[in-house]
């Protein structure tokens, strides 16, 4: 049995019906434990005070903002190459979730930046890249909703996703070139110098796991909805023909 078996909508529906409750509960659990641990039982940072607690939502949402786009890119490629409808619908389902994750990362970042940098917003490369990413999500969602024929919409948004990915990377480097940043380096890099301390590390990992699982849950549920909507559309078309 290969992975592609799940490209069959019926099989996908049957399998995910059993999976969705499990991932939903797991994600709620991870989020609850990670965030409660992070919020109530971690010390304040000696420089940043209690604002360091924002890391438990800021870093996971930022990671998911990028991972969601990466997932959409993979799903779009699979759709263009193998023409599996589930793949195209999964890409469509992931876009609003990714957009909200980007928005959360931007908002928590702004709220965090206010006391730390003395400004809500700075035209820092990381912040600017995320704003551009958010614009890409908006365009992608808008293009999906503007086209009536679902197959053409899936094709065109896939092309947009691929071209958009290239331009998103390009913008990232362009923006880096354009302005030096205030933002600190990677929170989870291998380099111990800029890595966060262990006390913050484990609840952060749990929170990240929670966000990943939440993303998976939401995408599965939304994909199921999209498959149903597709079937509904087909039934309505058939009824109109008859």
């Amino acid at each position, binding site marked *: 049995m290969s992975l592609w078996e799940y490209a069959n909508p019926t099989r996908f529906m049957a399998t995910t019906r059993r999976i969705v409750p499990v991932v939903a509960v797991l994600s709620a659990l991870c989020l609850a434990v990670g965030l409660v641990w992070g919020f109530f039982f971690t010390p304040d940072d000696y420089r940043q005070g209690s604002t360091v607690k924002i890391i438990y939502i800021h870093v996971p949402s930022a990671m998911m903002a990028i991972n969601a786009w990466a997932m959409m890119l993979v799903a779009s490629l699979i759709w263009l190459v193998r023409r599996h409808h589930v793949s195209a619908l999964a890409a469509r389902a992931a876009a609003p979730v990714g957009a909200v994750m980007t928005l959360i990362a931007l908002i928590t970042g702004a709220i965090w930046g206010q006391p730390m940098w003395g400004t809500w917003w700075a035209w820092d490369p990381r912040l600017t890249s995320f704003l*551009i990413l958010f*614009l*890409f999500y*908006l*365009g992608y969602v*808008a*293009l999906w909703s*503007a*086209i009536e024929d679902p197959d*053409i919409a899936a*094709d*065109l948004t896939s*092309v*947009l996703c*691929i*071209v*958009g990915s290239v*331009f998103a990377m*390009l*913008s990232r*480097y*362009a*923006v880096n*070139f*354009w302005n030096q940043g205030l933002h600190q380096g990677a929170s989870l890099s291998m380099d111990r110098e800029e890595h966060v301390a262990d006390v913050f590390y484990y609840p952060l990992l749990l929170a990240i796991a929670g966000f990943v699982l939440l993303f998976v849950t939401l995408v599965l549920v939304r994909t199921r909805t999209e498959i149903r909507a597709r079937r509904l559309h087909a039934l309505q078309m058939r009824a109109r023909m008859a």
Partner: protein
Amino acid sequence: MRRLILRDLALAVRAGGGFGLGLSFFLIVVVLVPFALGPDTSVLSGIAPGVLWLGALLSCLLSLDRIFALDYEDGTLDLLACAPIPLEGVVIAKACAHWLTTGLPLTLAAPVLGVLLNLPVPGFWWLVVSLALGTPALSMIGAFGAALTVGIRRGGLLLSLLVLPLYVPTLIFGAEVARRGAERLDLGVPLALLAGVTGAVVALLPFASAGALRINLR
């Protein structure tokens, strides 16, 4: 292909073709800037390169939806798809015609408008160079956006939403060249990057645009 470019040029220059529209829009944007920011010449000369780039970019947007929409509606595009030249070539010809009717006039008009904004003297040459290098990319990216939205009625606003984020790298490097030129700084790196972006865009996007057109014509 040359015939196609000439035909598009003729259509654009003819009444209602929107040839002068982009230029007039560019002029108006530049005239409005001092009203918004005050007539202080030192402020204006500092922001002039950026404002001129932004104005040129926005004027470029205006005529994008004309690249394919009219031909799509009257069926010319279907004929072109069956023509002996590949659809990629059609896209290049269309983008080229768009550049000749908007990008090139904008580039030539920019120094004149630079006088209005008190652009420093060394900036003129580099402004023209950066626009000449950057506007082909704007036309090509715009043709891609137009190819994506050609089947959508009233797709103009959506087209802007799709195309503007794609303009970011070109705008950053182009405005950087113009700014550094005006301030007499070293500008080799952004100039090379701007040329690189344009080269890559012109080389690769025709394939994506032709793909999008084929999907829309199916």
